[in-house]
């Protein structure tokens, strides 16, 4: 990509993202005009003094829809970023943010907390569960002789299977109708009821982890030909790998805690973007974030509006769109290689 077309692509994506935010706020059971949305947002940002909107309408925009849209956006950016990193570091095109057992561990943690009667603390349970699973997977890999990509993947699969079995067992023995539905919806991933607190958590996760990952673009480039090649290009591979694993796990852990295990975003978006911009990570990482944000924003909007008044778990929508999209990408790869 030439320098000028790179700039054009960034501007276009940022523009699309901004327009999407307002458009997504407008979509929903209560009719909101785009102008109202702009007015409410600008008013709350202190840019417009007067707010002519009725209180109810203003609240729908500012308290319900905007935090949800922003949470979806941040989550999409985070998952796409985490997925890109996982794919490079494990040198595995099938890798996604949940590869090392993060989602299964999170599910186990969440279900444990839920069944213990602490439904409100479910996100914390999920966060602890995901980090626990990752720590276990990496220790197992270490026991096998060092956290190389293939060992980490195998250990991750093992831990994920174990955590899933434990989760199923717990649900089988103890869940009643109501909590079963809640668990199921959480397992499939949903942003239902996301408020400003969730938006804040997503933003915090991104602010903490994204800069670390974005600063590693050079190192990730050097990984293209494997560990030894990266080392001979002056990359401290052990330090880079642990830094990135920690940042990715933290980022994914926060996202899983808030939205559940939303699938396919972290798998499909990096592939789609790579197909267009190539594998130079200083370009690929930020582009994946932007595309992930836009993708997630629209799938979540579809999830909450398509079968109104019932809401679909967004994980179902991302899978419905993501799976065929993944297939198309694979076919396209085949044609041009």
């Amino acid at each position, binding site marked *: 990509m030439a*320098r000028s077309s790179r700039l054009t692509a960034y501007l276009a994506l940022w523009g699309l993202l901004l327009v999407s935010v307002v458009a997504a706020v407008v979509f929903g059971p209560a009719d909101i005009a785009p102008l109202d949305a702009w007015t409410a947002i600008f008013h709350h940002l202190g840019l417009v003094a007067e707010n002519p909107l009725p209180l109810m309408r203003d609240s729908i925009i500012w308290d319900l829809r905007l935090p949800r849209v922003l949470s979806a956006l941040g989550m999409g950016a985070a998952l796409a970023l985490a997925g890109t990193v996982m794919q*490079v570091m494990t*040198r595995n*095109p099938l890798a996604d943010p949940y590869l090392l057992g993060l989602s299964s561990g999170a599910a186990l943690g969440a279900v444990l907390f839920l069944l213990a009667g602490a439904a409100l603390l479910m996100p914390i349970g999920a966060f602890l569960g995901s980090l626990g699973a990752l720590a276990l997977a990496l220790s197992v890999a270490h026991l096998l002789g060092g956290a190389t990509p293939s060992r980490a993947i195998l250990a991750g699969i093992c831990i994920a299977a174990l955590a899933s079995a434990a989760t199923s067992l717990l649900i089988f023995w103890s869940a009643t109708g109501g909590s079963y539905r809640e668990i199921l919806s959480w397992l499939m991933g949903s942003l239902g009821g996301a408020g400003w607190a969730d938006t804040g958590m997503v933003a915090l996760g991104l602010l903490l982890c994204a800069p670390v990952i974005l*600063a590693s673009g*050079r190192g990730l*480039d*050097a990984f*293209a*030909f*494997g560990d*030894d*090649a990266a*080392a*001979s*290009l*002056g*990359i*401290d591979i052990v330090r880079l790998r642990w830094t990135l694993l920690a940042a990715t796990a933290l980022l994914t852990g926060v996202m899983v805690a808030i939205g559940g295990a939303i699938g396919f975003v972290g798998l499909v978006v990096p592939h789609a973007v*790579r*197909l267009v911009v*190539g*594998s*130079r990570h*200083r*370009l690929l990482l930020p582009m994946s974030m932007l595309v992930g944000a836009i993708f997630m924003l629209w799938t979540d909007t579809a999830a909450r509006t398509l079968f109104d008044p019932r809401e679909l778990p967004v994980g179902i929508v991302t899978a419905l769109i993501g799976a065929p999209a993944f297939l198309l990408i694979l076919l396209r790869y085949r044609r041009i*290689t």
Partner: protein
Amino acid sequence: MSGLVVEGIEVRAGGRALVAGASFAAPAGGMTALLGPNGAGKSTLLGAVLGQRRIVAGSVAFDGVDLRALRPADRARLCAFVEQTAVTAERLTVRDVAMLGRVPFQGTWQSAPSATDDAVVSACLDDLGMTAFSSRLYHTLSGGEQQRVQMARALAQEPKLLLLDEPTSHLDIEAQLLTLDLLRRRARAGSTVVLALHDLNLAARYCDRLVAMKSGRIVADGPPAAVLTPALLLEVYGVHATILTVPGSDLPLVVYDRADSTFSPTKSG
């Protein structure tokens, strides 16, 4: 002395010594070839020099500096390595791959190559005859083309020490000459070049010094004419060799045959 000095290196794996007490020197401005059969320890020795292999004994110094004690980034600006094969699943163009050689020179937040980076990479691609391939995807190239791109990447590191593991193994005969010529020019310009080679005649023609290895040990070290003897080639490779002279020059020309061959144009009967 200036150049690479390797002393008493020992590398072990699975209770076995892959390299046992290897010492040799590769002077600056010269080309040094590592010879020996498969499994002799050539690649392991190169890996040990680079710091990619843990050594249990010995030392590696380049221009008097302990290579293995340098910070990775400093070492990468001093020393470049070309693997025998390098494959990737990433979608990188030939130019992207050659540009990896500039990684050690770039800042963390630098989003695009500098003008120097661009100029160096263009020159290196040109040197290896790969300019026309610049925008082709690396993984669609043939083995020999990939090897040339990797060499362009290594040269883009502007290294004072260049280590190559069988850099001509996938190249056609003309490309072999072009590459070794290029390496020798780099050496004459002051770099130190060390390469593992299988072709004895190419080694004799282009290298100033040959180091022969067998079973992890160095068994001969010296100028081509001193190393390439029938006795040594029988010891190292188990072949019966005849050393001729290239007509019109004093270069040795090695012709060889298996010791127990039943078909041989060089033997009578």
